[in-house]
Structures are given as structure tokens and as C-alpha cells.
């Protein structure tokens, strides 16, 4: 595997000063996807924003990993509903004179 677009979880752990166990739990819970190379776990660079959000929720709001899972599911539902609302609003314009 070419690691050019990947960052190791160990690097993330030291960079964000977050215990590696936090990332391991995120992986176990299926909240982040990792690739394995030489027994090290790597995450795609473009997923860093999502991981940062998880770190913020964990540290600033003291949300545990299960809570992060719930928050992300709800945020996803909000996004879906907002998209649906946008489509419905646009469709409503069909009936407005």
C-alpha cells in the first residue's frame, strides 16, 4: 500500500495528544476505517476533518465514543432531512404562482 495519502494512527495520536486507545475504539466501533500496513493502522488523509470533529466532541463536550456514534448518526439524519426539505421547498415552488 502506498502511504502517500494516509496518516498513521500513531502520528494522529501524538499530533493531537489523544491516547491511541481512543482511535482504537473508534476503529472497533466502525466509526473510522483504517488500512493496515506493517502492523500499523493508517487513515485516509481526507478523513482527518471527521476525526478532528470526533476529537473535539470527545474533549470539549466530554462525549464518549458511543455518544460520538449517536451524534454522527443524528447529524447524518439532519443532513438527509435538510436535503429532503430543500427538494420539497423547491417542489413547492411549482405550485406557487
Amino acid at each position, binding site marked *: 500500500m502506498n502511504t502517500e495519502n494516509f496518516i498513521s494512527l500513531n502520528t494522529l495520536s501524538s499530533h493531537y495528544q489523544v491516547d491511541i486507545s481512543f482511535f482504537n475504539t473508534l476503529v472497533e466501533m466502525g466509526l473510522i476505517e483504517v488500512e493496515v500496513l506493517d502492523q500499523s493502522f493508517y487513515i485516509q488523509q481526507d478523513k482527518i476533518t471527521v476525526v478532528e470533529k470526533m476529537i473535539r466532541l470527545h474533549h470539549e*463536550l466530554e462525549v464518549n465514543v458511543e455518544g460520538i456514534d449517536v451524534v454522527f448518526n443524528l447529524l447524518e439524519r439532519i443532513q438527509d432531512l435538510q436535503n429532503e426539505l430543500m427538494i420539497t421547498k423547491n417542489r413547492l415552488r411549482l405550485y406557487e404562482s
Partner: protein
Amino acid sequence: MEFIDYYKILEIDKKATDDAVKKAYRKLARKYHPDLNPENKEAEKKFKEINEANEVLSNAENRKKYDKYGKDWKNAEQYERAGQQQYGGGNRGQQANGGGGSENDFTDFFESMFGGGARSRGGGQVKYKGQDYQTELHLDLKDVYTTHQRTLTVNGRNIRLTIPAGVKNGQVIKIKGYGGEGVNGGPKGDLDIKFSLANHTAFKRDEENLYSTVDLDLYTAILGGEITVDTFDGKVKLKVSPGTQNGTKVKLKGKGFPVYKKEGVFGDLYITYQITIPTVLSEKEKELFMELQKLRTP
């Protein structure tokens, strides 16, 4: 700088204990945190306020100064020095100059927010992505019929954008790296552009399909014929079947709106015929209609 009542912001009493301050901050932070309120400017503003309030009230020394000096609490030391000098014969002019400091506002606090969080976790320089910016771009429906380039000015910075044909009203496009500066050398935030489309055409749009109503004269509706109708990009000739009923819908395939990010693919145009009945008849016309009526009446 306007006086900001930090107690009011945290919804607590002036006699609130440290624990009560902490509890109130956490409760409000969970409610207004930007990660939980995407694209909500009100929540973002509120979050900045509660962070600032917490930074002051959660620190015993700062809180003491704030309680004593109010909005000028940051200049407490200068005041106290001035006070001592006053008692010892110092001049009052120095005291007047000391007041009115306003170098800090909510924005400064917000910018240091993530850094502040990092500091509290051990004093290291943690890099964080910059703030995401949101802006709204008002365009005409006609503008987004074709892919085109446009230059936007966001926070004094010119951004040349390619706007793909078929963008929807309310759609948000993320431009990576055009947001706020990262904290401690972290990557820049993103720019979210929300499209607001005004429709001044005779067409109504539902996703990639267009809808319009076309007047059809009574005689063409009965006898059939050929008419010319407007589409979004020009006129087309259309055959009308004899005996066409009022409200009949006709689909013109591929004459709708471009499908977003699918070059050369278009939706359909749905035309609804609205048959126009003559309201004023000449004597001759009236006579002929009556004759037709007789033919139809057994």
C-alpha cells in the same frame, strides 16, 4: 467595548459556585457547539459568547477582576496601579488613559478556542483546521443553465469558481481550503457556498425537469395542427393531435434542465395545454357554433 454580562450568558447567578459555572458552560456548550450545529450562525455566535464567558468566570482571578471592574476587567492591574498612585499623589490622567481597552472581542476568543482546548490538554501546540466560512450566492435560474465561471470576493479574497450547470436552489458547494486560517499551523477551513436561485422565467423547475403551461386555441385543440412553443433554450415546433383536451400534458424529452455534473444530460420539459375559449363571438361565429351544437344534439 460594550459591557457583556457573562453571568447572563451562562444563565447563572452572580453567586454561582465554580461547579455551577462549569456545569452551566458544559450544558450550553453541548447545545451550541458548532460541530452539532452546522451552518447555524446564531449557534456559532452563541458558542463564542459562552466560551468567552467561561474563560473569564472559570478562572477565579479573572472572575474577581470582572466582578470588580466589569467590562474593563482586563485592565484591572492598570486600574489598581493607578489607584495606588492616586493615593500616593499620582495623577488622574493616567487612570483615564488606562480605561477602555477593547483589543479583545468574541472573535479573538473563538480563534483561540481550539488552541485553548489544546492548551488545557497539556500545553502542546496542537494543530487544528481553521473555521469553515459560509456564504450565499444569489443567481438567476438562467445563470445555472450552463456551466460558467464566476469570481467571488469572500473576506477580501477573490475566488474564481466554476459553477456547474444544474446547481439546485439551496444546494451547498464546499470549496476546500478557502475558510479561516488553521490554528497552530493546521490546515485552512473550507468555504461553503449556498446557492439561492431566483426564477424569472415562465418555467417551473423540479430537479432536472421543467414545467410550463401553453395556451392552445380552441380550433387547433379540436382539429389538431402545429404550434411553436418556448423551451428553455429556444423555440420548437410541436404537433397537436386532433381532439386535444384541456390540461393535456406533453413531454419533450431532453428539453428540461441540465443534470448536475452530468455533462450533456438534460431532464425533460412537461408542457400542459390550456385551451383558450373565445369570450367574444361575432354574430356569424355564434350562428356557426349553434349549428355545430345542433349537429351534436340528438
